[in-house]
């Protein structure tokens, strides 16, 4: 009587998996495609590549314009990260720790730079910086990128601080720690994962940003600007090599930030 049963097949579930699988392929396809092209032995974009070579990596490495652009982007990204955290951390503390009039209004207005189209913000800042003579200066780009990165930084930090149990800080003060010591020894280590997330977001926002840089960089190109020009004017796949390097670089940063964030559930976004 007691026959072996097979689990009922669930057509809905199968359909769901198929659709999800197809979307995952769609999402990953462009990332995967870049690699074989970057190792192409051909002299222009062709698929499948006619043979294996490292020539495009060499060309990138030996071209001072590419290298300068890379260094400038790293510099701008680092400066943006530091600036966004210097402004964002106190801002997030202020928004989470006490009630004052207009607090909610300020918090809501923080996301405004995300809603305003980048092109609009770009030309607006371009107009301002032309007057100030900041065009072509790397720190000008960093300042403008900070405007774009700040909303992400504040949102992530505010979420992290809201999750943090203020009683822990109070307990530390009850045990004799000064206000500053309590923040330094208890609060900061516990919200550190959010700070890493915020830093990562700020860096990526700047490192990948094209539209603002297009207006502000002048002759001193950032990496995205150089890539954009190259895509428009060249048919050779140096950009593929640069893209492959960028994907690996971001992958590495992502792994590093995951290590830093261990043991916390702060989401990477929002």
């Amino acid at each position, binding site marked *: 009587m*007691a026959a072996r049963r097979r689990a*009922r097949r669930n057509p809905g579930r199968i359909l769901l998996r198929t659709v999800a699988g197809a979307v995952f392929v769609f999402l990953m396809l462009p990332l995967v495609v870049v690699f074989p092209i970057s190792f192409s032995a051909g002299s222009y974009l062709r698929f499948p590549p006619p043979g294996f070579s490292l020539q495009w990596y060499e060309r990138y490495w030996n071209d001072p314009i590419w290298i300068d652009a890379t260094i400038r982007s790293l510099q701008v990204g680092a400066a943006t990260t530091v600036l966004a955290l210097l402004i964002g951390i106190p801002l997030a503390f202020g928004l989470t720790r006490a009630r004052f009039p207009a607090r909610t209004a300020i918090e809501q207005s923080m996301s405004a730079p995300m809603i305003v189209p980048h092109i609009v913000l770009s030309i607006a800042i371009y107009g301002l910086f032309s007057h100030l003579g900041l065009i072509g200066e790397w720190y000008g780009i960093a300042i403008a990128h900070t405007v774009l990165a700040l909303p992400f930084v504040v949102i992530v930090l505010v979420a992290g601080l809201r999750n943090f149990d203020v009683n822990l800080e109070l307990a530390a003060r009850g045990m004799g720690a000064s206000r500053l010591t309590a923040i330094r020894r208890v609060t900061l280590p516990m919200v550190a994962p959010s700070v890493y997330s915020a830093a990562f977001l700020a860096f990526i926002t700047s490192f990948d940003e094209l539209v603002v840089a297009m207006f502000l960089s002048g002759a001193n190109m950032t990496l995205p600007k150089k890539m954009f020009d190259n895509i428009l004017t060249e048919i050779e796949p140096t950009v593929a090599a640069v893209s492959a390097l960028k994907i690996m670089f971001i992958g590495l940063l992502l792994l590093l930030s995951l290590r830093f964030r261990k043991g916390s559930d702060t989401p990477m976004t929002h």
Partner: protein
Amino acid sequence: MDKGADLTVAGIHKRYGQVRALSDVSLTVSAGEFLTILGPSGSGKTTLLKVVAGFETPDEGDVRVGGRDVTDLDPAQRNMGMVFQNYALFPHLTVERNVAFPLEMRGTPKAEIRTRVAEALAMVELTGFEQRLPRQLSGGQQQRVALARAIVFRPTLLLLDEPFGALDRKLREAMQLEVRRLQQRLGLTTLFITHDQEEALVMSDRIAVMDSGRLEQVGRPRDIYDAPASPLVADFVGESNILSGTMEAGGSVRLADGTAIRVTGEGPAAAPGAKVRILLRPERLGDAGDQPGAENQIAGTVVEAIYLGLSDKYRVRTAGGVELLARIGASRTARQYRAGEPITVGFHAADARIIEVR
């Protein structure tokens, strides 16, 4: 309304990876019967309920309702009403729409839906709450909505998954009686899941005690309490003293500390020399002075005295070092002991029973 159908589960096995959730579970619930699956958390009782409801497919075995094999049916086709642990009320629908949901799914005409929803809500005394959202109701009211929703489509079977867990004690007791009355009025075959033994004793026609994926014992509440089939059941249902000893000739058992007690309660036969375990319910132990005719008397010291209102509970250590729980009912004449005082407890030989022979 129609009488409920009978439910049979036969030879159910279910495992998750290495974990055996259900091992050869067979059980019959007669039409109109209220059967409780009682067990600690992780005993497999919820898995059994999910198998019956159709949310899990057993590895082996059948589920039959009214003689019809439903094992391969989707839950939607089984026509069983279920009340979930957290009620699972749809938070975006009003009380009325919640209760109407199963009828709408069955394509019942609108006018009929209206009358039957009203009927069901009247049955759980929630007339007038039709337009409220679940979050605007108290826990007890939410529970009633869940109940109305589970019976409104005249299911063949009512499944209740620890439905009283979230209620405070007073409300829980009221709801227990109300659910029981409703079930009897409608003649609904009911499978009830709980880990609360008191609840099981109060509500059930029969109780099935589960542990580690197996059925330990199935029986009427009184049988389960008075004649538990194993030390495990004895320990889980009610408070108990379980004493180990050796059988002697003439119906006596010699305990580890050397005391001999007479045991005549019903239980498995044991040959002299056999190792046995005996069950002694604490409320059957009394102050020896108040127990005329008690064959057994044991002297000891009160280790702990707990006042419980209706009774006093004493932890007594005998001279030989055996610990006993005694529950002595509060009466005007009952003497109160304090910790450290000597006490002699007595009990009838018929109140001690062998529950395990090794």
